[in-house]
């Protein structure tokens, strides 16, 4: 089992009241799945994704990642876990503007103590695989949105994660670019990468093998 969430609650205090962002979430994700999370704005999609990505904490419940109890782990251990197994794709790409495509791809490897020559070959592989060798020396601002997201996906994949978490990956793209990214996800999924994406688009959600609907922090 890759991810197992049991009775996850997350809330914030506002004016003496608890406002629930996540309410009693129970979810099991097997390796090789492709899940789309849907729901209206403010329903807790992104929060759920961030909790699964260990970027955000939760207040109650249990979370096992690869059978390790995340809720009991120390910060450092947790960081190691997601560093090793999780890759993120953002709606706004979040590439670093001052770094070239090549350097953006290389960056996650820097925090993993991977030797220089190995980094080189990993980045080269990735450039090859995504057909962006010719763009490696360009800066993000010199690329179209679709190309930027391509680099974003490549960056998420470079550490060979088991799980890709994508928060509205097509939100800033036109439909053609969005479709390309979805097809890429499908291909990656076929190659064995587990993908969980948050999306507003019914059409894109269909790429997933399973759809989870959220409303007011609850799975419906």
């Amino acid at each position: 089992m890759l991810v197992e969430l049991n009775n996850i609650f997350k809330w914030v205090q506002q004016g003496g009241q608890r406002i629930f962002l996540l309410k009693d979430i129970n979810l099991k994700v097997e390796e090789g799945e492709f899940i789309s999370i849907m729901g209206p704005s403010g329903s807790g999609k992104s929060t759920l994704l961030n909790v699964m990505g260990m970027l955000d904490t939760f207040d109650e419940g249990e979370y096992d990642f690869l059978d390790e109890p995340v809720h009991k782990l120390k910060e450092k251990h947790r960081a190691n876990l997601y560093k090793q197994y999780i890759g993120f794709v953002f709606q706004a790409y979040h590439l670093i503007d001052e770094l070239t495509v090549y350097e953006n791809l290389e960056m996650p490897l820097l925090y993993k103590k991977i030797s220089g020559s190995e980094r080189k070959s990993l980045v080269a592989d990735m450039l090859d695989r995504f057909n962006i060798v010719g763009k490696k020396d360009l800066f993000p601002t010199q690329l179209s949105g679709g190309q930027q997201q391509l680099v974003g996906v490549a960056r998420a994949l470079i550490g060979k994660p088991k799980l890709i978490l994508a928060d509205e990956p097509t939100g800033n793209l036109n439909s053609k670019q969005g479709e390309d990214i979805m097809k890429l996800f499908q291909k990656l999924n076929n190659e064995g990468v587990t993908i969980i994406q948050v999306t507003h688009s019914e059409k894109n959600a269909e790429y997933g093998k399973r759809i989870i609907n959220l409303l007011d922090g609850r799975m419906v």
Partner: protein
Amino acid sequence: MLKHNLVLFLRSIKRHKSSFLINLIGLSTGLVCVLLVYLWVSDELKKDKFHANDEQLYQVRRNIPNGQGSLATFTSNSSLMLTALQQEVPEVEMATAVYEFDGNARLETSEKKLSAFGMMASDDFFKVFSYPLVSGDKNTALADVNSVVISAELANSFFGQGSDPMGKTIAIKEGEENIDDVFTIVGIFEIPKNSSERFDFVLPYKTFLKLRNPDYINWYSNSSSIYTLLKPNVDIKAFNSKMADFISKKNQNVDEQVFFTRYSDNYLKGTYENGKQMGGRITYVILFSIVAIFVLAIACINFMNLSTARATRRLKEVGVKKAVGANRTSLILQFLSESLLLTFFSLICAYFVVLLLLPWFNNVTGKDIVFAIEGSMVISILLITLLTGLISGSYPALYLTKFSAVKVLKGKISTSVGELMVRKGLVIFQFSISLLLIVAVSVIYMQLDYIQSKNLGYTKDNVIMVERQDGLINNMEVFLEEARQLPGIVNASYMQGGMTNFSNSSWGHSWPGQTEETKKLTFRHAHVGPDFIETMGIEMKEGLSYINVKPDNESKIILNETAVKLMGLENPIGTVIDMRGPNREIIGVVKDFNIQSLYNEVAPMALLCRTEWVSNLVLKIRAGEERKAIAGLTKLYAEFNPGLDFDFRFLDQQYQELYQSEQQVSALSKYFAGMAILISCLGLFGLTAFSAERRRKEIGIRKVLGQGIGQVALMLSAEFVKLVVIAMAISLPIAYLLASDWLSQFAYKITLHAGYFVGAGVIALLVAIGTVGSQALRAANRNPIHALKEE
């Protein structure tokens, strides 16, 4: 990773040139200040420390009641002190007596004539002090009455580079002590650069003792400085209390306290007030160190403010890095190394700027500093730079890395109130310091201006001073008589010492109606020529001047107003004073005139008409005819002193030199204040730009809703102008206290009025408005559509 971070750093510099430049200029300027002050302070602290026995080397001082209720401190001592110390005080390992001539002496070989400054010192001089001897034996150099030790520099000017002057003879003529003899060179010394004393030749003290009138070798006559090497384990406090009544025990009639001070301390802590060490150059050393640190602090604050204010730009990077697995430590390290890198960049800039400024700086401070790279200095400079980098980088580093990746990437960071307060507090601090400096500059400037223009009681303009040397020693009166006939010369006379200090003082005089207290009244006095009062433009209050009562001047005396008042004389004219020797009749009273710097009140003074010990000629020139007069004097001088250049000084220049350190302080504080304001404004500039950026949406909405450009610009400026006003409220009272404290040391000073402070405030405000306003206008002029569309 390092390469990555470096690349990131360099590219963000390229993209955000203006904030990089603000930081670079700010930090470099701050470092320039610190480097210059560091060089200056370390030079000051090294003064006179080169003597091998520095820790044991002490000077003898005396505290004497001045008859006006306080103590006066003297470094001069009786020549009897030397033997007394050597023979009777076991704590004294070695001692030497030094007599310094008032002016230059004339030295002559068969080929050349030069004037040079010298002194007479007793046998152990070169053992007590460590002026290195190039040739000669420090044990015997001053043993023989007919020998002289000269400086390498003087040897070069007489005999040329590379020649051996040892054993050659030199004729030395000096009017003050009536030296006129031939001396054999038995030694050559050098004066290290960091010596506070400069002299060209040393004669044996035996010469002094031989020539001195035996009447003046007693415990009343204090003409020499005494220096001692105390035994290594002497407790100076206990020793000073033991020695306090040393002179009083020898001479029941005097009430003097003897104490010993470390010789190398004298340079920085040489001023004494009412018998206690007060102020001195050390004040300025401390003051400028503080100012330099403040200027650097202002630059550090800029860096902190700008980097946190522009955090939004960097936060995305932080968020992304955190999301891909960077931990906080590595990010903190990244930011710290960026600030360190920037500070080292600034150091390099500062280094070149300092090299460029050094000649100018030496000129302003009257120093001869060479920026030599040497171990301890490199280490301290690197430490300063490291500290600067760490301090200015720590806050941004900790601040930027504390947010969680989710928040950052969702753009949910709002600047907290606390943070804004910190930023505003720092701006207030910057401007408070700048304001303090502006007030300091204006107060110092006004006080100096006041000093220059104050009526001193004599006219210092168009008066030249000529040393009494060579042919003038015997033919002074003839020279003066002929000089008076020259075109452009108004009057001519002579005096002992100079107008900026009457070095002679005496007490123990008696007169009818004297009270017990005034028995110890100390008079400053000088021997002057018959028409001295007229030449100097000193006003008579009552009675006659010497010019009217020739030729019987030797039994007369002229006093100043202060003296008459303190003596309690109702009708001074005709009163006879017993001056421990000849009785003198008061024939006139002059109005008070200042002979010392205006730190001091006018002292009781006496003018005696005598030629003995006279060291200077004073000549009054008609305004506008200086050139003609000096040409005539040069010719006349050559007739009396063949082979000697006509060397003269303008009195007003000499007067300026009294305030040399004040002039230096004035000049330096001007530049420091300028730098502080420059850096503060750079910071303000950056912050306004940031604020305009942050409030883009607000500005857009306001404009869409119909607010005019002017109103928007005003709103933006007000935010910062308010800070400057708060800074004024904080710093101006402090400035007032500091300024009155500084002025309190002057006996004659300007009165502080609100103008200085309001003026400083207005300057700061104008500068701030100028800086902020331009940015605010630019922001207000933007098309609101662009700002609003982004959401």
